[in-house]
């Protein structure tokens, strides 16, 4: 370990692309710089943006490591050979096998639970009950009230596709999303987009990760938000970190992975408003998440392999099905890309 630290210090620099919330990203980078004296710069980009950038740069990446964001796009670029494997020492603390890539292309750092966030005041004003499960979202009274993220740009929305296909079967899952589309007002570019608009009432029902909802309630003071865990079960994402193939500072990058898998890094998450469950046995779980009734173990069995292998096809199928059903998928006001 000390060898690695010395080698990393000799490189003296690290560039991070982060797909978690910017506050967490910035805190994590600042701490790394402070601990090891390595100059750390970062840029916050959504997973889709990082994927596009890394593919374009094809082995000559402008950053060294990727931090945060759901694993589906990690798997895509790993399959394209654009990530470097690294067998992390601290990986011994990872609690489950699914929380890391079989060939060590990425390591999990947190997990988040998919669910609904609703604005209680708005629902009261309209005299509506909050949806309790996935099929409830299709009710006609929720027309124009639901926000989701864009299937093309957000890892969160890709998880929604996989979840529905695994839950209801391929054809029925896609049919569900086509039906859901009739109630959806906006597809935001970023996965946390809906959560940010629930409190102000711009969005009444948001689909996304519930830890984003906790941030809005605890850190930003939106007491009118209620979190709902779908009663028939939901899935979870894994947030990961990885080294880009061709990284200019390979040792600093490896040290970053060790750091990201240590309490030093992950324990500061809830201080800056990121309430995901942690996947390390020596880390402190965020109490706030339990207080809101979330439980990392109460999720459906998720077939990560199928998700990784087929998500590209699924996204295309869904977009085609939406277009065939009469949705204008080119309308960037609704399917937001910016």
């Amino acid at each position, binding site marked *: 370990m000390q060898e690695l630290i010395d080698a990393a210090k000799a490189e003296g620099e690290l560039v991070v692309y982060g797909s978690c919330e910017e*506050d967490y990203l*910035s805190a994590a980078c600042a701490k790394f710089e402070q601990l090891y004296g390595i100059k750390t*710069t*970062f*840029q916050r980009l959504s997973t889709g*943006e990082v994927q*596009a*950038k890394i593919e*374009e740069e094809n082995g000559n990446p402008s950053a060294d490591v990727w931090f945060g964001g759901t694993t589906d796009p990690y798997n895509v670029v790993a399959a394209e050979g654009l990530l470097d494997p690294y067998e992390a020492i601290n990986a011994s603390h990872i609690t489950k096998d699914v929380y890391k890539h079989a060939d060590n292309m990425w390591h999990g750092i947190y997990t988040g639970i998919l669910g609904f966030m609703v604005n209680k005041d708005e629902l009261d004003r309209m005299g509506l009950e909050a949806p309790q499960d996935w099929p409830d979202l299709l009710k006609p009274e929720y027309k124009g009230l639901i926000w989701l993220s864009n299937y093309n740009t957000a890892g969160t929305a890709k998880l929604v596709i996989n979840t529905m296909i695994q839950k209801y079967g391929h054809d029925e899952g896609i049919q569900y999303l086509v039906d859901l589309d009739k109630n959806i007002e906006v597809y935001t570019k970023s996965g946390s987009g809906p959560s*940010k*608009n629930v*409190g*102000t*009432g*711009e969005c009444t029902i948001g689909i996304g990760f519930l830890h984003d909802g906790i941030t809005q309630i605890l850190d*930003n*003071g*939106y*007491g*009118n938000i209620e979190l709902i865990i779908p009663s028939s079960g939901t899935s979870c994402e894994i947030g990961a970190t990885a080294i880009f193939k061709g990284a200019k500072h390979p040792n600093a990058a490896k040290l970053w992975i060790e750091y990201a898998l240590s309490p030093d890094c992950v324990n500061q998450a809830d201080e*800056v408003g990121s309430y995901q469950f942690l996947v390390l046995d020596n880390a402190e779980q965020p109490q706030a998440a339990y207080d809101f009734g979330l439980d990392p173990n109460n999720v459906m069995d998720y077939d990560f392999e199928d998700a990784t292998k087929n998500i590209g096809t699924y996204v295309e199928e869904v977009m085609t099905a939406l277009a065939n059903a009469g949705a204008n998928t080119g*309308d*960037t*006001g*609704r399917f*937001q*890309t*910016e």
Partner: protein
Amino acid sequence: MAKSQSAALDRKKLMADPIMVGTIIVLIAFLTLFILYPLAILLVDSFYGGTGFTLDTFKRIMAMPTFITAIGNTLKVGFLVGILSTIVGLLFAYVEVYVKMWRFVGGLFKVVSMLPVVSPPFVLSLSMIMLFGKAGIITRQWLKIYDNSVYGFWGIVIVQTLTFFPVCYMMLKGLLKNIDPSLEEAARDMGASRWKVFATVTFPLLLPGLGNAFLVTFIESIADFANPMIIGGSYDTLATTIYLQITGAYDKEGAAAMAVVLLCITLGMFIVQKYYLEAKTAATLTGKASRGRMLIEDRSVTIPLTILCSLATLFVIMMYACVPIGALFPTWGYKFRPLTFKWFGQVFSRYHGLQAFRDSFVLSLIAAPITALLSMIISYLVVKRNFRSKGFIEAVSMLAMAVPGTVLGVGYIRGFSGGVFHTGFLQSLYGSAAILIIVFIVRSLPTGTRSGISALRQIDKSIEESAYDMGADSFKVFMTVTLPLIKDSFLSGLVTAFVRSITAISAIILLVTPSVYLITVQINEFAEKGAYSIACAFATILILITYGSVLLMNLFIKYFGTSRKLKPEKVKKAKIKRIDIRVVKEG
């Protein structure tokens, strides 16, 4: 023969002055490298496809429906904003110059014309969303309208009109003041109604000026990046499309070609405005009215106009006031009380506030004196000296005025990311703080140069010539004679450059790297994320810094500027002389 002889003499004189020659060479190098070259590389990039001349890139972007829509959108918005700003500006200018009104209304006008100058460009978009958006204070909380959307065409038009009409107001005010009242009084004496006088005398005299104001606003609107970015929603304009083409689609060639299209549009308008309308305006309205105007006191005119204008100004002031107040709400859109300073705290504790303010402040502070000095040197060379590349220097420094920030940004990316002509030369510039300073300088240079030229034209050549005769070299003459004489213009150029730099966004958002924090970039980021309270807190502090600096500079100018006693007299004399000449010509 005599002419060529004198030219030869001039050249000889110039060559004997190494400081002058050195300055000119450095200037030409600077202008070529940082204005001409980035624009040229855009052309090269979009026409050169690896093997030779090609139109493929243009064909590709022209086939993008989003791009064609964006051109249409941009022109539509620009046209309407141009017209609306000119009308509102004319109304304000007319009321101020022609109508007797209460003192405080005049004060309001001053505030309104000052506010857009010291604010970062997108504060009005922010307040528009906060006041009238779907979760807006006025729409949702007060009027209980739950689905009002401000995003899109009308949002941009309203916000841009409010941002740009003060420019029209200032331009038209100057022109109206120059109209000789006797012309209108003659018409009144012959029995024409006020309306008829306005329609048949004042308006025709003003027409080229109105056209000028319209085009200036049109160009500003087309070049505007910040407002469409925040309030445009899915309504893309050229500036935002180019930005997204780079940051979203990583298509730099496509963006370069788009930038060329945008540049052609603004350049074409700029040429019409500068060389046709400005000349025409000058022909109908130069000099100064020979005496004061009898103000309209008729209550049936003054009361409605005063009320209309006061309401309009109060509306604008409310829009600006929304920003500092919005920064105090504990939970935007949900809990408005008790007011809190926690967002201001977070700016510094969480979001690198101190670093952002320091970086913005220091970079602008470095850029401002360089800009002011450069523009004074350029105007000195243009007005006072004769040499071959003079036309080039003047044209290029003015050209920068017609280049939208986004275009310049793309040009810098294409021109410097791989070094000059992709050779690696000056590559280290890219991504550094120095390139931001250069962008600041280039962006403020035209305004400084313009004011420097007009200041210098009022100074007689003989003053400097006598210094030369006594043996001073050009550096000494410039520093000890010319510069002190145009100190006011220099200092105000300094302030303008500082304010423009610290509030700039369009070009630098493409060039800034994670190692430098700039306030405007931060505001843009938080506003886009919907974190309005933080964005407002940043914007409030920025406005305070800018306004504070302007006040300080003004104080400074008051104590160290040119002595006030002499100047008005001198100017008046010069003006009267010009009017006499005009009268003779017309007679």
